[in-house]
């Protein structure tokens, strides 16, 4: 398919209010042409509303949307030439697969021969060559999903919007289609905006991810950045598992904090933190279970008691109670990792982790 030039997308101060309720508040974002960007967030975080504003299906209360440098302000949805795939696919039930895919081309009054050729190409693209004369209700969820993608791509839009399109599929099929989507994106070089509440899906698919919370973008960056350098406690908690601990910052000693029991812990200095009431965060796989007598080796450590052990094959998940600190942490231990003595419930242990893997956030 000859794509029209992939377009960059800019959102400037985009807001949407329903009466006194702010569904989206001051969203600023620049998406490069050809990127696959995911809007990730819980229900009601504003991600779908933002997508619908880009499509023109919702009118912004304020702000601007620029596609390829051109404002979409006064352009109605049917003239925006943006592809969209919906959560429930929204295929037209009275039409066959081929008619569904041909529909946007007929609307654009393309010659019949070109429509037929494009429909055939689109069907091949999504591996549904033999399904042209079937009706949507006779297809499986995965097949309907592919038809919806083909229909959205057949008129070669510069931007494709996808609103939780894999939400209704089972896990294995979802993963299969994620791989196909990634491959499709690579082949077509189209800008894709993908909405999901599934962090694994976001990590698998995205070049960059915008994490939404309460109508705002909490952080926008690569999956690697979001996982290893979360900008806030909210992002850290949303992305993967995280262990948190309430701590107090030491005055005049950036990066030095005290736990509730007075235990001194170190973290990479964070100049942006102005408050003394902080939250320390460590990823479970960064924490190792050590004997209380082990040497420190430039690590942070806390004493606790094993509450639970779950064997998961290649690793075990160890839940450790830190009663004095008022926290429960989990750690991931590789199977066969050297430990002086086998771990057991009720055992007193030390939790140790590298200083450079210690994150500090302002108390929410």
């Amino acid at each position, binding site marked *: 398919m000859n794509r029209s030039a992939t377009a960059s997308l800019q959102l400037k101060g985009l807001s949407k209010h329903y009466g006194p309720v702010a569904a989206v508040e001051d969203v600023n974002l620049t998406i490069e042409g050809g990127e696959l960007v995911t809007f990730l967030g819980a229900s009601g975080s504003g991600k779908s509303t933002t997508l619908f504003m880009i499509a023109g299906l919702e009118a912004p209360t304020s702000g601007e949307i620029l596609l390829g440098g051109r404002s979409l302000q006064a352009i109605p949805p049917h003239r925006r030439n943006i592809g969209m795939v919906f959560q429930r696919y929204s295929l037209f039930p009275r039409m066959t697969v081929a008619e569904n895919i041909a529909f946007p081309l007929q*609307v654009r009054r393309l010659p019949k021969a070109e429509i037929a050729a494009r429909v055939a190409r689109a069907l091949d693209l999504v591996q549904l060559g033999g399904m042209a004369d079937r009706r949507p209700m006779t297809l499986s969820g995965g097949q309907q999903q592919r038809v919806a993608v083909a229909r959205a791509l057949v008129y070669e839009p510069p931007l494709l919007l996808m609103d939780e399109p894999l939400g209704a599929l089972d896990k294995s099929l979802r993963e299969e289609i994620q791989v196909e989507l990634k491959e499709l994106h690579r082949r077509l070089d189209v800008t894709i905006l993908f909405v999901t509440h599934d962090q694994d899906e976001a990590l698998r698919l995205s070049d960059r991810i915008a994490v939404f919370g309460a109508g705002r973008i909490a952080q926008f960056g690569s999956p690697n950045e979001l996982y290893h350098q979360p900008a806030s406690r909210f992002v850290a908690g949303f992305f993967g598992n995280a262990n948190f601990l309430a701590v107090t910052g030491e005055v005049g000693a950036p990066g030095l904090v005290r736990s509730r029991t007075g235990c001194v812990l170190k973290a990479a200095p964070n100049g942006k933190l102005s408050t003394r009431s902080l939250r320390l965060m460590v990823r479970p796989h960064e924490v190792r279970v050590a004997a209380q007598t082990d040497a420190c080796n430039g690590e942070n450590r806390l004493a606790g008691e094993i509450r639970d052990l779950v064997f998961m094959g290649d690793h075990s998940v160890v839940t450790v109670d830190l009663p004095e600190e008022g926290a429960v942490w989990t750690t991931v231990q590789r199977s066969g990792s050297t430990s002086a003595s086998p771990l057991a419930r009720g055992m007193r242990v030390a939790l140790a982790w590298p200083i450079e893997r210690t994150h500090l956030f302002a108390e929410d």
Partner: protein
Amino acid sequence: MRTLTFTDIEFLVWAVRWTLLLSALAFGGGAVVGITIAFMRTAQHRLQRYLAIAYIRLFQGTPLLLQLFLVFFGGDMIGVAVDPWIAAMLGLSLNAGAFLGEIWRGAIQGVPKGQIEAARSLGLHYVPIMFRVVLPQALRLAVAPTVGFLVNLVKSTSLASILGFVELIRAGQLLNNATFRPFLIFGTVALIYFVICWPLTIASRRLEKRLAQAYRR
């Protein structure tokens, strides 16, 4: 008391024609009003919606008999003599419009919102979305309640007899007055109504099935 003659049967059959014609014209008129009301009810313009709601409330909230009287005698009040036939057709059409409007509004709104959003995002605007996406799907949802209402409408034409219009019920009354055989005559009238209405119900079920199959082929 006298026996029924061939002329009496002919008189009843003639009255059936008027019942069917009145039903058809009232349904046709009601359909025109109903489509207008349905579109007004689903419009984005608030005033249109409120006017449609007011119309529906008025005609659904008052007895049909009263509406027929108002149309028939209302003409006299403004100095226009209204023929019973015209009054019956107009009254039934206005009443049918309110009910059909609500049935079709429900069918239009029964089409998933995502269908409209998909059509808009694919490049269609309001009018073609309605005719190419929404109405074909709404048709399927509307068949059963529409035919159900049509059956009711056929039976409601009997109220036109109050205006002196000779349809099936009125013909039955006149025959009964002449023959004094109420059980036979009104039994026959009931049977005729059944013969008119039953095939409509059967046809409706068939059409529903056919439309459902069109989605599954």
